[in-house]
């Protein structure tokens, strides 16, 4: 599948944004993270900013972005429509929580409820994003039990690492947060390795035989219907990444998982400005690594239509 940058950035940014929003909503609303105007402003600003930037970026993928409002109508059948509804609906409790926790400096009571609802909305939106991909039967690498948990785990991971970087930056660092961020990163690493392992051994029942209805023997493409690449080959026949996939998987692991794990591990052992710098570097490296991961998620996914063109 062609990795359109607008969609790669969209899913990575909203994943991190919703992960951060959910954490702030739960920990801020309940008072675990005390209300602090500047921390709250930067934290909520970053969470909502990532979400808004991601959503805006996703409209860059559209052929007719001026009609994007129509996408809220088909939530009964379409995961993409549900994503649109959930993402916009989440802004309401998130906004109320922001007013209560950041502007009024309150936690507990209605602020806690708004925070809880914002977290629930964030989780639901991430689920709808994951289901858009997990529900597509023609793409076996996506239509698997690994896809939906991956979106949830990566959102929790990037959100936690970001939250830790902010807490450290504002000198509000708790002892639990770096450990939680580190564990979440290890979970993400494990899940990605398991997913790659599953995809590499995947045996797809759909073949050139079932695609053409020609039973038995081998079916070899000898002539395409057209001489140049068409929409189908440009969108679904993307092959560039395969050549470099081993290297890109290493880059993903180094940036998204190994570097943040190492940096988060040293936060305990170094004094304040250094721990904060390590935490911020961890968040930056991980975001860059997750962009590579998401790029590979698209580039390594194979659509059944390429069987008609004799491509593997």
């Amino acid at each position, binding site marked *: *599948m062609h990795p359109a940058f607008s969609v790669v950035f969209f899913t990575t940014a909203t994943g991190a944004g919703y992960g951060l929003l959910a954490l702030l909503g739960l920990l801020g609303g309940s008072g675990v993270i005390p209300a602090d105007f500047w921390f709250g402003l930067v934290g909520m600003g970053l969470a909502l900013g990532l979400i808004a930037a991601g959503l805006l970026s996703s409209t860059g*993928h*559209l*052929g*007719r*972005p001026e*009609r*994007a409002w*129509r*996408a*809220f*109508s*088909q939530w*009964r*059948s*379409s*995961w*993409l*429509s549900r994503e*649109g509804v959930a993402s916009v609906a989440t802004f309401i409790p998130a906004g109320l929580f922001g007013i209560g926790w950041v502007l009024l400096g309150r936690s507990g009571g209605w602020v806690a409820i708004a925070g809880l609802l914002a977290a629930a909305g964030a989780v639901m939106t991430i689920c709808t994003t994951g289901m*858009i991909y997990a*529900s*597509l*039967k*023609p*793409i076996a690498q996506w239509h698997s039990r690994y896809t939906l948990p991956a979106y949830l785990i990566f959102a929790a991971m990037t959100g936690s690492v970001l939250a830790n970087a902010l807490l450290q930056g504002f000198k509000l660092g708790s002892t639990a947060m770096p450990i939680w961020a580190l564990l979440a990163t290890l979970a993400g690493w494990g899940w990605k390795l398991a997913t790659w392992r599953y995809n590499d051994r995947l045996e797809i*029942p*759909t073949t*050139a035989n*079932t*695609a*053409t*209805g*020609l*039973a*038995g*023997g*081998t*079916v*070899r*493409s*000898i*002539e*395409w*219907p*057209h*001489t*140049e*690449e*068409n*929409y*189908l080959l440009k*969108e*679904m026949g993307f092959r560039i990444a395969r050549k470099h996939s081993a290297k890109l998987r290493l880059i993903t692991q180094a940036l998204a998982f190994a570097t943040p794990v190492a940096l988060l591990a040293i936060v305990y052992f170094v004094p304040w400005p250094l721990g904060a710098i390590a935490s911020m570097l961890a968040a930056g490296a991980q975001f860059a690594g997750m962009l590579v991961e998401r790029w590979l998620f698209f580039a390594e996914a194979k*659509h*059944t*239509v390429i069987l*008609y*063109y004799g491509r593997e």
Partner: protein
Amino acid sequence: MTCLPARTEKKLGLVIDLDTCVGCQACVTACKEWNTGGHMAPLTDIDPYGGHVDGVWFNRVHSYEHTTEQGDRTVNFPRSCLHCEQPACVTVCPTGASYKRASDGIVLVDEDKCIGCKLCSWACPYGAREFDTDVGVMKKCTLCVDRIYNDNLAEEDRVPACVAACPTSARHFGDLGDPASAISQLVEERGGVALMPELGYKPTNRYLPPRARSERAAKVDAAALEPIKAEGGFLGWIDRMLSN
């Protein structure tokens, strides 16, 4: 509405005979000609006379070599929308632009509602949908919905343009939901198959597999050429002179 109708009154579709298709591309050009002025018009071409020709087509003919124990055979394979009973291209549509008609089962796109998110083309395993980069919306086969019900056309012309154009009658149109229809009986008789049945889209269109080879078929192998002997005499002299 992108929820699917529980059932459709008819299941209009195509049956394509892979035995008789000669790969002439007449259906491809007839489709393009009709539809570039039809329901989903225009079928935009990008850089049509340049080095990177691209454009929207509803029907594409591939050629394959099918190798079995009986030997090799070339199979020409027209590929277009199969008007599935379970079209995920419709249910994934966030705007309601894609829909399946309850009356005849035809899957269509309302171009005025399409936002060009391309998700339907990802959801279609058959590559039936093509994005028009110029207009910014998705386009697909309409089963010539503007021909088959068109009272301005003679009755025999009320078939999809691809069917009307086929010189070998390899394409058939009709109601596949009616077991008594000529097209359903053809499928029954020839053992017509659905494409990628394992994905569960339940396509309406059927493909008739190539017939088994007949032992009685005439041999078409030409006799091997014999090497030409050098000739003597006058003709041999001319041959040598001209060969220099």
